């Protein structure tokens, strides 16, 4: 099947049901992903600061996308380890938007409930929950809730740091809330509807 470039989509040459996994990911990614252009050179895997902890290098993940290995890809810990340092993105000789593809894969994994370790997805969701409630980040709430849930044993070890932060005034005890929270909620609700229709 031919690669579905934007050009082809615009020309109506590809239908929804023809989408390969690769193209599905490509279309769900912000901007133009150039995912189909990957030449498997390994620049991304070589650049990645956390590659050692990944079960697959980003390059391998792209090969697996091509091979249609949906479940294996969505179960991979690779996207969750991505630290968004963009080293791979600026070095990629084919201008693949690797970091954005990782965001897409995270979203797909959450939707398919295929992630293996829930730490990262829960952290993201907790964070987003705070933002959707207050409009601003709330570090103390986030940190305690997250650590309680995932690293309860480590929490005592982290206490001096947390206390230090609080005592130095670097962690607010109460969250800040924006003035027009209602407006933000309306925007986000509409955005979520749009997300579903796309």
């Amino acid at each position, binding site marked *: 099947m031919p690669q579905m470039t934007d050009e082809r989509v615009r020309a109506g040459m590809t239908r929804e049901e023809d989408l390969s996994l690769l193209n599905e990911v490509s279309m769900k990614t912000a901007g133009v992903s150039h995912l189909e252009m990957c030449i498997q050179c390994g620049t991304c895997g070589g650049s990645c600061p956390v590659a050692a902890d990944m079960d697959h290098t980003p390059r391998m993940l792209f090969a697996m996308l091509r091979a249609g290995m949906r479940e294996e890809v969505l179960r991979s810990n690779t996207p969750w380890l991505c630290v968004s340092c963009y080293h791979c993105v600026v070095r990629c000789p084919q201008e693949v938007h690797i970091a954005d593809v990782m965001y897409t894969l995270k979203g797909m994994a959450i939707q398919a409930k295929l992630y293996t370790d829930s730490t990262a997805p829960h952290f993201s969701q907790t*964070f987003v929950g705070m933002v959707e409630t207050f409009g601003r*980040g709330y570090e103390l709430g986030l940190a305690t809730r997250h650590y309680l849930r995932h690293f309860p044993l480590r929490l005592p070890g982290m206490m001096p740091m947390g206390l230090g932060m609080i005592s130095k005034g670097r962690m*607010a005890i109460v969250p800040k809330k924006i003035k027009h929270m209602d407006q933000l909620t309306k925007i986000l609700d509409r955005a979520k509807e749009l997300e579903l229709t*796309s």
Partner: protein
Amino acid sequence: MNKYLLYPGCSMDSSAKAYMESLNSIVEPLDLHLEEIEDWNCCGATEYLGINLIPAYSLIARNLALAAKQTSDTRTVVAPCSACYLNLAKADYYMQERPTLGAKVNEALAAGGLEYKAGTLDVRHLIDVLVYDVGLDAIRKAVIHPLSGLKVVPYMGCMLPRPDYQHRWSDHEHPTELDDLLRALGADVIDYPLTTSCCGGHMTQIGPETAFELIHRLVSDADERGAQMMVTVCPMCQMNIDAYQNEMNHFFGTNFHMPILFFTQLMGLAFGRKPNEVGIGVELVSARNALAHIGVEVPVTEEPAAPRKKDEGLPMPRRWTKHEGKKEAVK
């Protein structure tokens, strides 16, 4: 007069309040006018993008829409936080690159009575504005108390120079903006190959071992090169290296003591502000000893640098910069 809209970001009044305080201390000597975007919201950091695409971009775009509405005498938004800067710049860029995304985001914004036409605003980071608009000459002129003798490694972090949608930085890998600025303050700047390597980002929350490894790389290399402190432009970098250094030492059985300050704090000191006016003292890895090297109250006289041994080896090519041929400020 240099007027800008300010997008502070959530950390500026909590974990990075030293950044905010020190920023406030330099606006006057540099004739900077920062007007805060009214009722701005969180940019979503690196978290929202991984969950929902359109809501994530709509969240960011609300800020752009508010800014565009508020602005009359400037179209530049300044973000001191690298992650905020990247998110704002990225939303602006992708809304143009993928018009369908732009249209959807605007549809969502419309639910809140807002709209944003991508490309209307210039999104820039604080240091970009300081180096290229204010200029190193003006900064040099404002220095009262040069930081001579303070050995620093400039740590730019990753999200600032990359992916660089607007081609603002001298280089993606080894940008020199922070080096140049610190040199203008009189500090001894050490060439730091890891200047744009990652601090671990949110991995401190979700995979601490991974994050500790990254922090360790940064701190040990800085230490190896004889740095007395690291200097950063990003709240996340500061937080990770400062607040988690102790844990990292535990994890590796090391004993590093590498303070990390915001560049604005050093600017404040160089402009003659008192340590407490620029938020010094709230860092968890204390900078007291490092700052003693420049004797914040009693400046140490500068020792003449030892003449360099004549290089007998083969000549080296000049170092490259995207702005080759032009002087430092090109914008």
